[in-house]
């Protein structure tokens, strides 16, 4: 049941989708991972760290 459910949600039994732009060629999967890394990087810079304000008040 489990594998069938995953297969319905994420059908992976097909060739990768690739993006072409001039000499660049990248798979959709790799592009998504790079985009997620960029989003995480920006979020890490912008989101407040837990306890930071409390530590500043204690100083």
């Amino acid at each position, binding site marked *: 049941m489990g594998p069938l459910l995953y297969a319905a949600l994420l059908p992976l039994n097909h060739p990768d989708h690739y993006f072409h732009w001039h000499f660049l060629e990248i798979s959709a999967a790799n592009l998504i*991972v790079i985009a*997620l*890394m960029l989003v*995480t*990087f920006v*979020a*890490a*810079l912008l*989101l407040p*760290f837990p*306890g*930071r304000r409390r*530590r*500043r008040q204690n*100083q």
Partner: protein
Amino acid sequence: MSTSELDRQWTTRLRRRAVSKIPPEKMLPDTQPSYVSSWIYVFGVATISALIVVIATGCILALRGPTWWHGSDVGHFVNSLHLWSVEIFFFSMVIHLWGKYFMAAWRGGRAMTWITGMVLFLVSIVTALTGYVSQSNFDSQWISTQAKDAINSSGGGAYFNLLNFGQMLMWHIVLLPLALVFLVAVHVVLVRIKGVVPPFEVNPRSDHE
């Protein structure tokens, strides 16, 4: 044995040198500078955490073998844990690298920390490649036959033959993990000795909690 004889012993000299170079209070500090309270400082330790899961699941895979990881539900699960912890390992490592690059983390005598990090990144890529060709499936056959051309064109094929499964497996489970763990240890000790690199605008001497 007299005190002067004890002083001359190589164990005494090595211990004193080690304690002076890497004092225990620097290895396990009680506080960190306030600028470390940022998510961008989390990704180095996230990478090490992922590496621990990679090594632990790799040990289980080594104990049970390919028939188990290809042919049983638990084997599939542990195999997937190994793959996805590698994904998190590289994901965290790349963000750690970006963060340190934009902080110019080689400042303040931290060049060796930066260099060991870069070497770690390169060794990790080779470890991942040997892992992909050790899967023992069609994917590994495809990757090894494609990647052999790159290695052969660099002249390294005689020493690093991607079509030699035994050699690739030994690189993956013995030589490269040893190199990785050693380099991680050196990298972390260097971070502890020199401290975390401060942001450009902060004076590290006046900003400790």
